[in-house]
């Protein structure tokens, strides 16, 4: 749904049903009922605030921001959802750090090798907030959405909720029972390489080196919305 506030346009609210919504409506059994809504700020460029200050920047955002057409694809309609938080004085959102075996010094690339002892990696994601003593209780992640390339890796001791058409597996994992001193959540899981054939290496390997496959995984905190992306480099 797009929301337009333009003095020269008659369109105020542009709403369409998503594909999922059409499926529910097509049941025609009276079960279709809108029970909640979500807001997002996908179009907003907050660097305008940094560039022009709060007053002028806000005005520029309000007047100059183009609004997306309403999307029927649910996954694209709202990418950056707004969250409701009770604390009006909250000024800092939490972030996530990754630690574990096989990570490079910057913590952005995970190395794994097929057919060796490094074919599985224990990873730990820790929630923290910079400049604060405590993570707000409403931002403490209870569940994490983990997206991994299903062709190459899986999470030990878990089954994916579903696998999309691009072979990205979606896992929903609960946080570990322990928390940090600041109350931040901790998530630990073991990423395990699947059996990768030579054909897969030849198809998915990098153009310069067909013995290396590069992929991307991500972990999203369901409460805080914090996202941690990391690269996976798989050697033959």
């Amino acid at each position, binding site marked *: 749904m797009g929301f337009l506030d333009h003095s020269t346009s008659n369109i105020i609210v542009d709403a369409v049903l998503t594909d999922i919504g059409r499926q529910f409506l097509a049941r025609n059994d009276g079960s279709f009922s809108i*029970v909640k809504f979500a807001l997002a700020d996908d179009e907003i460029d907050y660097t305008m605030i940094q560039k022009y200050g709060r007053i002028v920047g806000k005005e520029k955002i309000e007047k100059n921001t183009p609004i997306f057409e309403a999307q029927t694809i649910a996954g694209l309609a709202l990418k950056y959802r707004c969250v409701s938080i009770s604390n009006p004085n909250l000024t800092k959102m939490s972030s996530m750090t990754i630690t574990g075996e096989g990570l490079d010094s910057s913590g952005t690339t995970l190395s794994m090798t097929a057919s060796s002892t490094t074919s599985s990696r224990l990873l730990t994601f820790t929630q923290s907030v910079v400049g604060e003593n405590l993570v707000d209780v409403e931002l403490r992640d209870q*569940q994490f959405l983990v997206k991994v390339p299903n062709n190459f890796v899986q999470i030990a001791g878990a089954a994916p909720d579903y696998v999309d058409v691009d072979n990205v597996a979606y896992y929903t994992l609960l946080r570990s029972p322990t928390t940090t001193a600041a109350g931040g959540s901790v998530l630990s899981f073991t990423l395990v390489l699947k059996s990768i054939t030579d054909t897969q290496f030849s198809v998915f390997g990098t153009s310069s080196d067909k013995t290396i496959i590069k992929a991307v995984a991500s972990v999203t905190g369901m*409460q805080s919305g914090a996202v941690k992306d990391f690269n996976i480099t798989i050697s033959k």
Partner: protein
Amino acid sequence: MKASTFTSNVLSRISLEKPVITEGKFTYGYFTPDEAVTEGPVPGTQLTRENSRTQLLLSPRRNTIAIMPTSSKRTSLSSEKAVSLVKENINKLYSSEDIGNTGATTIASQDTNVLDRAYQLILRAAESREIEGNFTDIAADLGLSLPDSVDKSLLQELGVRYASAGAQFAVDRNRIESGKFGQARSFTSTTVVADKFALDIVLNTPQASPGASEALQEVRNDVAAVQSIARQENQQISSNDYITVVDPVSVKAGSAKTFDYDISALANVVYRKEHRANGITSTKLLSVIPVDSQNFTDFQVMYGTQYHYWIHTVYVMRTSAITANTGQVVTVDILLQSEPSNTISIHSSETVPPPPPADIAIRWDYYERKPVVTWSFPPNPQRDIKYFQVFKRASVNEPFELQVEYDFNDSLVKPKRYESIEPTNTKPVDTPVLSFVDANFKKESTAIYAVACVDARGLVSNYSAQIEASFDKIRNRLSTKYVSPGNAPRPYPNVFLRGDLFLDSIVTKNKRRIKAYFDPEYLKLVDRFGNDMKLFGTVDDGTSYKISVIDTDRAEDLVVDMSITDLLRTKAD
């Protein structure tokens, strides 16, 4: 009979206009674990238009009183200088009795507990007359015995005080406070009595009301000491009795030719008396505020404490005086404080239940092969949610059963719970848990889940949205169905379902006889304290049950009386 004679001085006094507190209220900002044992923090800077909103948002709790300032002449000093002058000379404030004479005492009384007392009085009257029922029944019965000239609605108005008995009313309490009882609570009487007869006067004062009597009893010990000391002093009337010795805040050279005076209002001094839950009582000077301030906010508030506020207006009196040591005529400034304003009482507690949890959802954990119920914190500015409860039922025709209660209450003082939770259903956790894995779920079964939350006061929310879950073996996935929107009350989980909430009557036809069976699941029901709830009435107590049969074709009806004989008791007897 022995009689004593004492000399007494002429009583004189200076009348200074006093301010009036028109309203007082407690505002709960947000929860802090030590709120019941520690006073709230004081904001770092003065409240201004620019930062007041931020400071109020940062304030966890506060009491605010509205003030009607005096209309007296104002000082020519700026408000900042006037406040500063009073603060610097806070130990040099003289009351009107200090200036007016040296042999009299002022006794101020206010019946702030008139509501509670009237409420208890009515309950006792109902008990002695053996009137039972709710407060409406009691008020109606008692009202019959009152003459027509008495406003009987006052009895019903007192019903709002049922809050003290554990029930909460949705009546706007301000309506009652501003009514006749409110006027009675805010009425203040001030009496000046000679020291030598102070105790005798107090003891012989006709008891106009129990409240006035209690107020006088509070000062009885003080008055007794004053009278004792006064009678031991010199019984001769001396010119010294008419000399007032003061410590002025400023002294300037004066003239013996003119003896004039000038009085102007400087500032208001706010006092606070507190009654803590642990029985500790203390009084302190809270703040000095500008004389034109129309409100005052007290941030140093402890949750659950009863506070009483009153105000004195401080005046500066410029007059001529004679120095004690040299006898020189000078012009002095003396600080006088008015009689206390009316006292306003504020109980720092809140009774707002939390909203139900949001975003309830159920997914299937393919590894554990069990459903996982998840939810999130509802937007709750009070931030006082301390328990989550997960409920489950097999269908809408069955009641919800508590599966687990997550207890993450970090409050230093635990609340009184209004529910009885089995200890086996309670799970203490360090940090909030927003998920529940139903280990008892069978793939062949269907279950409806709902979540509720409990705040730091023990107040419970309504149910969240209700989701029905069943496992679709053919598609190998969990099927969920939205059963009910959120906010259904605890006693009525089906209130938002389409259809009748209650079955009004049994509809049938072609019947000639009715067989009624008395088949209760329990013969005796007791509450959490073990008291018999007396839900069953028998012949012994005159109870009868009625069946109303309506013939809709002929528009005729028949009422059949039924009674139950308690054979168990008869046999036991």
